[in-house]
Structures are given as C-alpha cells and as structure tokens.
C-alpha cells in the first residue's frame, strides 16, 4: 500500500478512532493481502506511516457478499459485475476472513 494512502487512513483513524472505522478495498487480487495486512498489523515493509502501527482495522473487499449487497443494483451492474468474474473471489474472501480473525 502506497505511503500516501497509509497516511490518509492513519489520519482518519486518529480522528474518528480505529474502533469506528471499516476499510473497504476495491483493488484487484494482487497486493490486496499486503494492503489488508498493513491496515491490520502494520506496514510489513516498514517503509510507511503505518510501520509498527497496528490499527487492527476490519478490512473488506467491495466484492465480498456482505459489502456488495449494499451496492445499488444498477451501480453494481455498471461498475462491479464484470470484476466479480475476473477476480479470484473465493481467495479474496478467505484471505480477508483470515486477517480479520487474526486482527
């Protein structure tokens, strides 16, 4: 996860409190686990503002059922439906569930 995004999320967490924050990622499979890890246990590359900062944020992907059920149907059809077929959704779901359980 790039340094700007890390800084932005850290700032929001500082303002509203990590307990009041859920992160929804939209990125494709590659790098997703790393991004989720960064927001849960801290930046594993120790390069960004979240190095050594364990926010423990619950991280979801926009295509996970619990999230996508909240997206209006027309928007889903326009922006997300195709990606559901492109990405490896079962893997995304299991990766993130594992991290949420650990976090």
């Amino acid at each position: 996860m790039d340094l700007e995004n890390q800084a932005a999320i850290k700032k929001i967490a500082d303002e509203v409190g990590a307990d009041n924050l859920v992160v929804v990622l939209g990125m494709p499979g590659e790098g997703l686990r790393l991004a989720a890890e960064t927001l849960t246990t801290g930046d594993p590359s120790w390069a960004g503002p979240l190095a050594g900062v364990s926010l423990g944020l619950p991280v979801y992907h926009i295509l996970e059922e619990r999230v996508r059920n909240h997206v209006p149907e027309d928007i889903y059809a326009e922006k997300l439906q195709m990606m559901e077929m492109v990405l490896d959704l079962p893997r995304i779901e299991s990766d993130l569930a594992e991290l949420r359980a650990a976090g």
Partner: protein
Amino acid sequence: MVPALRAASNVLVHVPDLVRYGSKPWRENSGGDAALAGALSRRLRSFAEAVAYPPNQVFIGNMAPGDLGEGPSPWYENPVPEASAKGAFGEILPQEDFYPLLEAADQFGLLLFGPDAPSGADAASAAAASLLEGSGPGKTGPGKRGREEEILGRIESGEALPLHRGGDLIGCVRRDHEADESLDARILLENLAAKASGAYALRHLLLQEEIAPEEIEYVISCSEEAVGDRYNRGGGNLAKAIAEMAGCAGAAGVDVKSFCAAPVYALVHAAALIRAGVVKNAVVVGGGSLAKLGMKAYFHIEKEMPVLEDVLGGIAFLLGSEGGGAPRVNLEITGHHGAGRPSTPQVMAEALVRDPLERAGRKICDIDKYAVELHNPEVTLPAGAGDVAATNYRTIAAMAVMKGEIAREEIPAFIESKGMPGFAPTQGHIPAGVPYLGHALVGMRAGDLRSTMVLAKGSLFLGRMSQQADGASVVVEV
C-alpha cells in the same frame, strides 16, 4: 486506399551492462548499497542465456506464444536447445554490437569510447551492420576513439557516466548542459538507446521485406522517451531521428504518445493517413526503454532468479495498401476511451472491446485472437504485479458472459482459444498487444487465423496530469 498491415518486426537488444542505468537500479545504487549492486551484477544473464530464454524466442518469432503454455516452467530454468538469435520476424542483438549503434546514433559527441570498445565490424546482424555503414549529417561514428585519461577525466568531473563491458570501463556518456536536467547524461543515454533500438527495429523490418529505406513516406514513433531540452521537455520527434538513422531520407516523422496505449494509436493513425490518401505507406516504430531495465530486478534477486529485465525491446510495423494477402487494418472497428468516462476495468473493456464490435455488428466471439498487454508473467508475478495478460483475458471473457455470448463456465475455454501467455519484456509500450502482430501475419498467411483485435491501455495518472487511464483498440483481419 484500404490500409493493410504488410510486415512486422520485433527485436531485442541484450544490454546487461546498461541495467544499472534503469530507473530502479539507478536509484537503489545511488543510495550507495554496494551489496545490492553486487547482487545485481551477479545475476545478470549472458547473451546465450538471453537468446535461449523461451519468451525471447517467442518475441522474435521462433516459437508460437502457445508453445510457452505447453513447455516446462519456470522458463528461465528451461532454455530452448540450440536457440538462434535470428527469428522468423525479429532478432536479438548482443550488447557488443549495440554500443556501436549507440555511437552511430550520437550526432553531438555525447559518447566517448576508448580504444578497446567494440566497433561493430563483426556484427552478425545484417540490420546492425547496415546501420553502421550508413552515415548521417554530423555523425561522429564508430572508430573515433578517446584516450583513457580523457574518459576518466569526464567521469571524475561529474559530467559523464561510465559505460562498461562486464567489469571493464570502455567509455562514457556525458551531459550536454550543466544546468539542464533534460540534457542530463542518463536522460541522453535513455534517448539514444530508444533512438538506436528503434532504428535497428526499423532497419530490420526494411531488410526483412526487401524495401529500400527511401521508399518509406512516413514514420510514427510510439516510443515513450521525453526527448527535448528544458524549454521543451518531451518536445519529441524521435520518429524523425529514427527515420534519419535508418536511412528513410524522404520520410516525415511524428511521435504519438499515450503511455502504453501509444502503439495502437500509432497503428490507427498510420492506417488513417493511408486510407485518406495522404501517404501510400507508413511505418510505426517503437524504441526500447532504458528506464525500465531491472525495474523488478530486486524481487527476482530475492527469489534467486536471474535479472530478466536485461533487454531493450524494439518494434516496427509497415503499413501500406491492401493486396497480396496482407490483412487490412479495419478502421471500422477501433475503440477509444472517452475522456469523461470512468477508468474502471469494466468501462475500459466496454470502450475497447464491446462497443466497437457492436457498432460493426460483430460479436466478441467473432474475433479469433485478442492481443492484449503481453507482459511476461515470469517477470511480473514475483513482484506481486499479477499476470497482466491473464487478467486482461478474463476481463474480455467476462464481457462476453455479460453480453450472453458465452456461459460463465466457458470462460476458461474462451481464454484458451482467444488468448495467449504474455511473452514480451516489461518495456511499457513494447508489450502493448502489438508484439503479437508478427505471429498474426504468420497465422494469416498460413490460413490459420482470420482476425485479431489489438488493444492496449495507458496509465495516464503516472504523469499526474489526470487521474484517468486511457486505451485504444483496432482489428486487423483478412
């Protein structure tokens, strides 16, 4: 006139000792990490290894893209036996013969080579040899050698960067203005590398088709380098510099840029000029990207792989009029991504694939092969950047599902039939669909292939002027 694709040429230049001047290795090494620099040099490949690397054999046309999927992997551990540097529509040039080409490309005395530097006199490549024979105005040319003290003096004064053959210093490249970052030594080396590799690809194309350089009327460069000085950074027209070096004395030239989407735009523009009758023929040419050498090398070193990003790519395509079985560039089926549209993958796939085919009354399944960004996955996967080609094929297949052309379960079969593994070096514009065109021509001449759609996307956001992505597509068919 009906525009047609008449020939394609894909070349590679193996430049292990220039990997250090790739953007990433340069930044890392500037930090003074000697261990890292040592690890990089230990994992560089020999010319023979680069030639025998299966994706490189596919790039120059000695193997079909599909052969990669069927052969053993990892590819870097499974060299092609008795591999040749000469291919069906391309070739691989060793560094030893590229240094003289760089020298021939230099009209301003930017390079200074010592007495031991290669002269190119024994170049096995006919294209390289013929470029060294030619001469342009103001050309310094190989043969004019500097003394060692002179080279060391330039380097020690900070105005020049060293050029090596293995561990030996053989020359240097200097800046051309103390206060102009656009004329910095490394930038000028980048630009010379793009010019020389582009001219090499173009000359290879002309020799392959037995066309005199003077017959070419128009050259469009889709190279990515920002050629210009501080008042005109990226002002460009590398096309004309390449045309001049390749001996296309009568050709006008212009650059077309849109990051990695540029080659497809350039094909469309060249075809449109021919159809409009402005010119009878045109060449689209792309030189290699020095900045992208070793871009992901540190991931490869970490995984004990060789440094695979050790080649500059070069591409050249000849467009003319229909006839003799040459496939037409079908300008009725071109896709563009409107500036006001979202840059999501779905919208991009609609704009580049679904919409242009629909307008022409064609289906997604009507196209025999899709040529998407063909980045070699063996380079991108260890860096966490995914399999670019595979993701693109899934996107097109998903679009076919959404249109009701295939069932969801048929996605793998669709990809198997209409896709291919990525085989191109990660050189930005070089993998942009177009390296398949040489293979497409072979298939169309043999009657095995009727149509291909070439599509590429560009990451405009990298330049910070827009958050958008861009993309373009066009169909080539018999």
